[in-house]
């Protein structure tokens, strides 16, 4: 039976982790490689890096991070943030990323999704959707949540599937950082609409939220940051809890 995945996400800026595990015994709390290794040794099913480097001159730092991590971690590694072109994707894959997530570029030019999935295969193309509720629908935001594209998130999800996305990483902007749980309505509506796996993101505050994301939100995988970073829960605890609730996980 296919297992639901738990994916810790690390925010990386200028090659350093800015939101990550806050363990006292960490040699270097800002080292993405060390943090990723802790997660993969702890049973994380995948690791996700979100590059939030703002300036162009420091953009290349992520390549070095990916290259070093992929030599130490032997679980899938997804990298996103600032991915603009097929060439960016190519570079990340060559450095050892297994999947690349595309956000703004996919909204602005869906051909990037089409071309990259043709060139590298759908299995490594994740389309990240940042969605915010507006009335009875959700709209897709770009540029790290700053710009409203006005595009309907459900229609967009369907369109991205057609363009060749292998997975969708759906973040509720209303919930992100609130720790009140995933936007279950958004997740389940998108998941029912498409035939590719959905990774739920944004809003996890406790382990029940992970259960809800899978059971109610129909997500194949759950992504979380804060609950793992600050030692609130380990990945193992999360898996044991999901298991106790009858959700299939890899233990």
């Amino acid at each position: 039976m296919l297992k639901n995945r738990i994916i810790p996400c690390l925010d990386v800026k200028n090659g350093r982790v800015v939101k990550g595990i806050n363990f006292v015994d960490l040699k270097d709390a800002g080292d993405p490689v060390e943090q990723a290794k802790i997660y993969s040794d702890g049973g994380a099913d995948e690791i996700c890096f979100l590059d939030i480097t703002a300036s162009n001159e420091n953009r290349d730092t992520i390549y070095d991070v990916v290259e070093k991590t992929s030599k130490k971690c032997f679980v899938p590694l997804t990298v996103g943030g600032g991915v603009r072109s097929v060439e960016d994707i190519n570079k990340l894959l060559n450095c050892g990323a297994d999947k690349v997530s595309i956000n703004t570029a996919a909204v602005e030019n869906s051909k990037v999704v089409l071309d990259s999935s043709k060139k590298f295969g759908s299995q490594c193309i994740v389309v990240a959707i940042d969605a915010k509720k507006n009335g009875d629908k959700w709209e897709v935001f770009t540029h790290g949540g700053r710009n409203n594209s006005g595009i309907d998130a459900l229609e967009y999800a369907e369109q991205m599937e057609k363009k060749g996305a292998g997975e969708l990483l759906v973040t509720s902007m209303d919930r992100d950082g609130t720790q009140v749980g995933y936007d279950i309505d958004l997740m389940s509506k998108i998941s029912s609409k498409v035939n590719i796996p959905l990774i739920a993101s944004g809003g996890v505050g406790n382990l029940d939220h992970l259960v809800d994301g899978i059971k109610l939100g129909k997500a194949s995988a759950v992504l979380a940051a804060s609950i793992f970073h600050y030692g609130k829960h380990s990945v193992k605890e999360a898996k044991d809890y999901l298991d106790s609730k009858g959700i299939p996980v890899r233990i």
Partner: protein
Amino acid sequence: MNVSIVDYKSGNISSVINSFKEVAKDKVTIEVTSDLNKIKSSDKVVLPGQGSFKSCVDALNKIKGLSDVLDEFAITNKKPLLGICVGLQMFADVGYEETETKGLGWISGKVSKINNQNGKYKLPHIGWNQINIVKDSKIFKDIENNSHMYFVHSYEFVPNDEKVISATTDYSSNIVCSVEKENIFGTQFHPEKSDRIGLKIIDNFINL
């Protein structure tokens, strides 16, 4: 000993390279190459593959003489070869992804889309699934039955002769996920992304 990972521009192979180098340490030389002479003279060959069946076959055929060299290596000289993901799928006679495409024809059978029961199951089949070991394969030495492996694929290899199947996995149907035919090995899952247990499979192959 010398293991060649065939670099035929089949998409992303860095993870395969990293994992083999991690396992090999200094004991074994890992070559990443499309050089026909190097492949010929190596002790073992790894045939990775990502993307579609057609794109991999096309990429392989683009390198003049490569499929003949692989044929000679695996079929005539019977030296150990491991195919991973589409690398395994290419063992088949024919694949149906994008369009009907001729495979290497090493293990008789076809590669067709996983039956997702009219959308009841998501495709690609992505994530960790357990393998049911049905045959005592050399690459499964010290691998427990029902171990978790990482999968990502939408197409499956359906061999004509069930005796080549060494493991299956349960998804929308029972999917063949590992084969062994004499010196030819293949995994549909990605040992290079399957944590320590996956590295053990790579170690087993290297130590054959």
